[in-house]
């Protein structure tokens, strides 16, 4: 087992970790979960806006991972697979669930992490505004600005043409900029 501060060690031993998990080593699989849990949980949280739903989604994703473990040939593939499945599952949930038409960001939505956040109000409002985007563009923005995936990877992850991804990013940024100015979070001069 590893603790929250031992991720570098885990990364160095990634190949062995994956092999052990495939061989049925439960503690190795638990380490894989700990390694990726923040990323998967955060995708769920930013997409669904609810901690309980995000936790359910993350658990579902890791259960799928458990079944698919033999099909992933490296830790990099595993990480990409998790992000892809989490984002697509969240889109599915949003399209199916009754709360998809409501503002997804609840009051317990947290932006700040353990490292602290310089402007929690701004972050909270940005998260709320992000939640007003439709599921597809929202997933594009989460994968781009939370997971730092490039446009080509987002296109593969969400099964979209690259130009559609670029278009979603451009339109979403313009919309967010307008909403930020409208909500008086910033002035037009600050963003120019």
């Amino acid at each position, binding site marked *: 087992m590893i603790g929250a501060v031992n991720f570098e060690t885990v990364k160095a031993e990634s190949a062995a970790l994956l092999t052990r998990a495939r061989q049925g080593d439960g503690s190795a699989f*638990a380490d894989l979960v700990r390694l990726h849990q923040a990323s998967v*949980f955060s995708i769920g949280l930013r997409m669904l806006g609810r901690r309980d739903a995000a936790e359910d989604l*993350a658990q579902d994703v890791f259960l799928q991972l*458990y079944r698919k473990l033999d099909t992933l040939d490296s830790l990099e593939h595993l990480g*990409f697979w998790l992000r892809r499945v989490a984002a697509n599952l969240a889109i599915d949930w949003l399209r199916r669930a009754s709360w998809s038409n409501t503002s997804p960001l609840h009051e317990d939505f947290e932006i700040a992490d353990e490292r602290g956040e310089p402007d929690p109000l701004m*972050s909270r409002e940005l*998260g709320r505004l992000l939640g007003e985007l439709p599921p597809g563009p929202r997933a594009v923005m989460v994968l781009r600005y939370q997971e730092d995936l490039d446009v080509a990877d987002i296109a593969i992850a969400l099964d979209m043409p690259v130009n559609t991804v670029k278009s979603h990013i451009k339109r979403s940024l313009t919309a967010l900029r307008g909403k930020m100015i409208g909500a008086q979070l910033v002035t037009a001069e600050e963003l120019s």
Partner: protein
Amino acid sequence: MNDVEQKLRRALRPVSPPEGFADRVMRALPERRPSADVVPLDIVRGAPRPGPWHRFSTPAALAASLVLAVFAGRHVAVQRMEAEQRAGLAASRELMQALRVTSQKLDLAYEAVHRPAPKATPEEENRS
């Protein structure tokens, strides 16, 4: 846009799930891990995207099936028509044959009726 992007990156830092999340995942796992599926890497990075033909494959298959069905139906209809023609010709031939036989019989009967009776011999006249 750069400032919005920077603010987004700061706002979207990863958040840790509630304490004990990994343990809950481990408790939810099935006893035995199922074997891997056959098609493994479609879902991971680098897998080729389906080509543009992929979205037309189903309509194309349906169209091909429709064309095949039309041709097959036409073939069956033509065969049925030919069989009916053959049966009709055979029936016609049988009818003609029957008419010929009937005609011959009638000719024979006609000849028999209109044939002059042979003259009686003297012995026959004396006997009567």
